[in-house]
Each structure stands twice: as structure tokens, then as C-alpha cells.
């Protein structure tokens, strides 16, 4: 579905991605793991079109998207739930969800999708007329994911979903991710919670210093000696 080949990306002179190869198969949950500053967010930004200086090949369902703008990439069916949630804080929860449905194709199904989101995250219905900035961390994350789903994605990319959430909430959010995947949405998950991520994911990639150092089925990655030692603390 998503095919990334030999991608390099730069911030000015600084090279943040070096020869990255990654493949996301339709219907799967893929985890992208790695330490701080590894380039995970940069890779998601490159996929969604936010980094102008990217080389190599990124294709989605057979279509090259390297040179496309973010506003066009989203209508192909790629949504990003950004690191730090980045909700429109002074807009209400409902307005944030409406913004998710801004693209033509998504706007047609606005009502129907809103109902789905309120079913998936009932708390958002309660909070719908509240300013998004006033939500708790967990509620904000739910709102950000729902906003991403409102774009009607085939591929949903979630960056650091569990950051700053309580352990109970983290567990709940990972269950939600599985539930979303069961509705047929493919998921690319960037996580620091390696343990949880490997449990829900079908495949995993480990990235260090802008480069993919390891990849494979997540069961196999979870049993890898290097991963056990460095990431799972065993």
C-alpha cells in the first residue's frame, strides 16, 4: 500500500533521513520504533508532504506522492495524527472534527462519520461544544485521532499516541487502535511504548539516526536480542 524506497530528507544542511526503506501492507498495523531524534516524525512528515526536501521514492497505492502537497495527499487517503496532538485549541471539539472532513470526498460523509466518531469515542460527544484546548490529555488524543479519521483515511499514521498518558489510558488507546484497524484502516504507529506497540502491531521497523536498522514481523522483532536489550530492557 505504502512503499518507501531510498528516501533521504533534509532540514537545511542536516540530513534527518538516510536511505530509508519501508513498506506498509494494506490491512496491517505497522509499528515504527526508535529512540528520540531517530527521524520517525520526519518520516511521517515526509509521507504527508510537509517536508519539501525529500529524495527517493514514496508511493501510495501505486501513485508517486513525492512532489505532492499535504492538502492533496490527505485526499488520497493518508491521515496524520501529529506528535503533540496539535488540535485547533480555540476551536470546539466538533469544529476540530469538521476540519478533519475538509476535503471534498470526506465532507460528503461528514454527518455519518461524526456519528461514527461519537460512537467510537463517546466522551467526545459530551465534550463536543467545548474548546479543544480545554480537554484533558487523553481526550485531546482521542480528538486528534478522531479528527484524523474524519478525513476518511485508508492509512492512518499516529505519532507518539501514548506520550503523557496514564498507563490505564495507554492500554485503552492501544485497544482503540486495534479496533480502528478492524474497521479496515491500515495503521502506521510511531511509538516509544515499544512493549505495547509490538503487541498490537503485525510488523515493526526500528529506526536509529535516520536509518532503518531492523525490520520484520513484530513477534520476531520482540524476540530479537538487540531489541530485548536496548528497547525492552530484558
Amino acid at each position, binding site marked *: 500500500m505504502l512503499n518507501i524506497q531510498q528516501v533521504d530528507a533534509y532540514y537545511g544542511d542536516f540530513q534527518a533521513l538516510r536511505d530509508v526503506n519501508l513498506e506498509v501492507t494494506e490491512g496491517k498495523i505497522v509499528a515504527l520504533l526508535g529512540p528520540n531524534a531517530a527521524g520517525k516524525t520526519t518520516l511521517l512528515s515526509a509521507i504527508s508532504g*510537509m517536508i519539501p526536501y525529500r529524495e527517493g521514492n514514496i508511493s501510495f497505492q501505486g501513485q508517486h506522492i513525492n512532489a505532492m502537497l499535504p492538502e492533496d495527499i490527505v485526499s488520497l487517503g493518508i491521515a496524520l495524527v*501529529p506528535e503533540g496532538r496539535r488540535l485547533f485549541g480555540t476551536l470546539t471539539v466538533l*469544529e476540530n472534527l469538521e476540519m478533519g472532513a*475538509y*476535503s471534498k470526498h470526506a465532507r460528503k460523509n461528514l454527518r455519518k462519520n461524526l456519528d461514527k466518531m461519537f460512537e467510537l469515542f463517546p466522551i467526545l460527544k459530551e465534550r463536543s461544544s467545548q474548546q479543544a484546548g480545554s480537554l484533558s490529555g487523553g481526550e485531546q488524543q482521542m480528538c486528534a485521532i478522531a479528527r484524523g479519521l474524519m478525513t476518511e483515511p485508508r492509512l492512518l499514521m499516529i505519532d507518539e499516541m501514548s506520550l503523557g498518558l496514564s498507563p490505564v489510558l495507554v492500554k485503552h488507546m492501544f485497544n482503540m487502535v486495534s479496533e480502528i484497524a478492524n474497521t479496515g484502516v491500515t495503521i502506521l504507529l510511531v511509538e516509544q511504548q515499544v512493549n505495547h506497540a509490538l503487541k498490537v502491531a503485525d510488523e515493526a521497523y526500528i529506526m536509529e539516526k535516520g536509518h532503518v536498522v531492523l525490520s520484520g514481523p513484530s513477534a520476531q522483532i520482540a524476540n530479537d536480542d538487540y531489541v530485548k536489550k536496548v528497547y525492552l530492557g530484558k
Partner: protein
Amino acid sequence: MELIVQVCVSGLLLGGIYALISIGLNLIFGVVRIINFAHGEMVMVAMYLTFWLNYFFGMDPYVATIIVLPVMFLFGVLIQRVIVQPIQSSSANMKIFATVALSLILQNVALIVCKGNFRTVQVPYGMSTFELAGIFISVPRLVAFFAALGSITLLYYFLKYSYTGKALRAIVEDHTIARLMGVKVQRLYLLAFGIGCAFSALGGVLLMPFSSVYPTVGIPFTLIAFIVVVLGGLGSMGGTFLAGLFIGVVEAVGGTYVSPALKEAIYFGIFIIAILIRPQGIFGKGKGSEEVGLK
């Protein structure tokens, strides 16, 4: 006692126009992230257009809005497309140079085309007043106030309830994320610049029945709008409205009891105090001066 009430009422009425012009600037500030130093020149150009429509065709200034507003909207769109868009990702200094240059060009073109004379339109109601509880109220100023109030209310509902209005507010918050949602930000920048210019143009038209136009008439409006936006808070329409009224009253009171010559010193004093104590705006809870590179 009568005098102070009289002065405050005149100030409030004038403040309505200040609010109108400033809200145009605030919209451009918030959405496009550019300080439009040529904002007062939009008022000037609109005043000249109104003057000519009256001079050549005998058109009433209020009727002239049907022509002046669309023309100035398109003028704003053109400025955004031709001048601002190409330098969108350049430094703040570059953008300041560009709009300061635009303001100087417009002033000088006005000077060449229209000469330096003061021009006024003669309308029968220009001087008409009525008395209410001992206070004299100028009819054209009252009309200006309510027209300003009406259009600000209209913009408020547009921003609050329309899909496009919500997208404009989303851009004010985070334009990168707005793009990720599929918002075509460049188009909305054009729209915001157009609306912003149309608002200051409306201010110009409304001023015409009771004041005169000359090439540098716009300069104080840029300054005032700037102060009003900082006081009102970036992105806060309500705050900007109140701040506009406030500055109108300050000008009237200062002009009457201190000295008309000192009114700019008074604005600037308030401006500096505001930045020091509450950079997020005095009247609104919008983002503040730090956002627009003033701090």
C-alpha cells in the same frame, strides 16, 4: 459633565470606524501572518474612489460602497497574490519591507494622480446633527458607527458558523495542520486579504461624508489599527472591537482635555504599556504582540 459625555459619545462613534479598520488588519495578521503596513492606504484608496464616484457621477458615498467594496476586495486579493504570496516563506523583515514599500508607492501614486489637495464630497447630510438628552450627535458619524457594528457582526457570524470561516480560524491556530486536513491555505490567504482590505475600505467610505481625503490620510490609520490589534489581541474579534472603541474615546478625551497635537503620543504610551504588562492583549484573549514579532 455635559461636555465629557459629549466627548465620549463622539469618541465612541469614531471608535466604531477604528474597530472596523483594525479588524481587517487583525484578520490579515492572524491568517496570512503578515503585518500589512499599507493597511491605512487601503482606507486612502477607498476614500479617493468614493470621492471620484461622487465627483464624476454624483454618486452618494453610501451608494458607492456597492462599487468600492468589491473593487477593494479584489485589490486585496491582488496584493496577496502578487506581492505577499511570493515572499510568504521569507523573513519577517522582507515582508515588512514589501508592505512598507507598497504603502509608499500608493501614497506617491495618489500624490501624482490626485495632487496634494484636500478633497471632500458635498452631501446634504454631511453636517446634520440631532440632539438627544442634551448631547449632539452627528448623523453621518452615527451611520458610520452602526454600519461598522453591522459588518463586524456579519464577519463574526461568518467566522463562527461557516465552514470557510472555521477553516480561517483553524489557519490562525496552526496553518500546517490545517493543510494536513486538506485546507487549501493559499486560497484562504487570498480571501482573508480581500476581506481585510474590504473592511478598511468600508471604513474609508464611511469617513468620506464628514472628512476629507489627501494622499497621506491613511498613515494614522495604520498606526491606530496596529495599536488596536495589539490591545485587542491577535485573532480576537471581540477584543479588537472593544479596543477600537477605547482608542476612539481616548483620542476624543485626549484631544479635548490635553491637546490634539499629543494624541499620537497618547496612543503610543498606551501601546507600550500594553506590550509591557499584557502582551496577549488587554481586551481579548487572543494571541498577542509576541506572535507578530513585536516582543
